[in-house]
């Protein structure tokens, strides 16, 4: 009987091994640089095409040169700003402000989102306001902030906070809402209560929504910062990219204006691509929510 049992057991083992081998497909992934290349060249081609069209329009003389500078004019303007050191200084100032503002928003938005997501009365009270705030362009806060805080850093950070906190909090809320109730029940069966349940089940389960909120929160931080910098200008405030842009406008320096827009765009994209996109991809890929090859 026991010998027979062993035989049956071995049979079962090999059967299961066979099934497992049949059912799990090892995916071959391309080397990293190939994937990177595949993701990079299409946008590069698109940008190159755009520049070519721009140059053609410039050559055709549709608009006078002072209304539409050529790509090389803009490049020259960027080079001048770089050589003068203003570009680096402004970039550093803006990125620092954006980063600090974002971190502060994170510190406020995360607990706020948790409260709204988990406490029903708080949700009834603040939930609608929070989603409403998200659709309010944060530029609208600039005049009020100037009246409250004058032309100071506080004004800038206030506007950034008003832009980013609702996004981050709402991201947290939607992350929490998307947690399947089944996971919480599983947690309870496994003996997770209160804090342990939050730490081991609720928060990890809410992470994808939260990370989406962070990404959006950064976009809102950056936008709000630029709005604030464009409007709130004063020698007391360090030079930021927004202020640089407004300076060019006042000097009627069209290449400088386009260079400013380009700088803002590139910084925003760079931080999004280098920081938030990889984090989000990682979180999703670990859970099998995106195909490994894309």
């Amino acid at each position, binding site marked *: 009987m026991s010998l027979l049992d062993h035989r049956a057991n071995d049979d079962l083992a090999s059967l299961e091994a066979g099934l497992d081998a049949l059912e799990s497909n090892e995916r071959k992934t391309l080397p990293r640089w190939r994937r990177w290349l595949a993701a990079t060249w299409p946008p590069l081609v698109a940008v190159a095409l755009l520049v070519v069209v721009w140059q053609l329009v410039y050559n055709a003389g549709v608009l006078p040169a002072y209304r539409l500078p050529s790509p090389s004019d803009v490049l020259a303007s960027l080079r001048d700003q770089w050589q003068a050191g203003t570009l680096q200084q402004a970039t550093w100032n803006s990125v620092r402000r954006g980063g600090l503002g974002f971190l502060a928003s994170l510190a406020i938005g995360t607990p706020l989102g948790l409260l709204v997501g988990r406490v029903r009365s708080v949700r009834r009270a603040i939930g609608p306001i929070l989603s409403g705030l998200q659709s309010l362009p944060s530029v609208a806060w600039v005049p009020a902030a100037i009246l409250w805080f004058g032309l100071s850093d506080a004004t800038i950070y206030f506007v950034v906070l008003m832009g980013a906190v609702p996004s981050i909090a709402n991201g947290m809320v939607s992350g929490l809402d998307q947690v399947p109730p089944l996971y919480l*029940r*599983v947690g309870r069966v*496994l003996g997770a209560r209160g804090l342990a349940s939050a730490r081991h089940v609720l928060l990890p*389960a809410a992470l994808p929504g939260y990370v989406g909120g962070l990404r959006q929160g950064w976009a809102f931080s950056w936008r709000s910062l630029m709005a604030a910098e464009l409007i709130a200008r004063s020698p007391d405030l360090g030079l930021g990219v927004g202020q640089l842009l407004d300076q060019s406008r006042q000097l009627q320096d069209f290449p400088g204006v386009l260079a400013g827009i380009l700088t803002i765009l590139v910084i925003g994209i760079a931080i999004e691509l280098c920081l938030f996109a990889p984090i989000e991809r990682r979180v999703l890929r670990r859970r099998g929510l995106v195909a490994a090859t894309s």
Partner: protein
Amino acid sequence: MTVLEDQGTVTTTAPAVTLRGVTKRFGQGPNILDDVSLDVAEGEFLCLLGASGCGKSTLLSLVAGLDRPTTGTVEVPGGRAALMFQEPALFPWLTASQNVELALRLRGVGKKERRERAQELLTLVRLKDAGGKRVHELSGGMRQRVAMARALAQDSHVLLMDEPFAALDAITRDVLHDELVHLRQSQKLTVLFVTHNVREAVRLGDRVVLLSSRPGRVVKEYEVKIGQPRRIESPEVAQLSMTVTDELRAEIRRHGGQS
């Protein structure tokens, strides 16, 4: 084999699970479960059989302590029962072995011991090399086996299973039936297994309890006097399945106009 045949009739030892006059309704709705009384003997494999929506999952949540009966009592003298859900319900942010480890961790098992025990349990369900895989990299059958390992990690001798193999293909399911029978013997488990598949119930159980629908009541019990290992295709299993199916159909017919 005679030893196994006897298992269904053991009534002298204290039951591992006791339900007495259990009634359950949600809010002001109708009774989902109505006066259900049931004993699961220590070491018994009991299959609870009923049509879809008759309250099987509800009954298991009561036994697992996830919910309270409206009236009546549910007792699990050995403490907490382990529950395997209808879906594998593994946490996708953890690897297979981390899923098992979490169950141990929540029981307060130390870090080093956790790792070893998780590896042991995965070996038990023959997934010793799949511990590092993420949930989405596992096949359906492998997921259910990890879920089984996680349930075993709760170190409860009572295992509640809610249609754990319903979503699997017939071949994988058959293999997992063998696996479960094997585990139950080697780990000396008491199993309360819920299913709407008559053959599965007869294939696995020492006893099959038929539950009616709306409200859920115990209508009939069958002792399965066929020795393990059984095969789902065997004439003995088919024979008893036929009897049970007829009874189930008669039960459903009683609802006549409703469906």
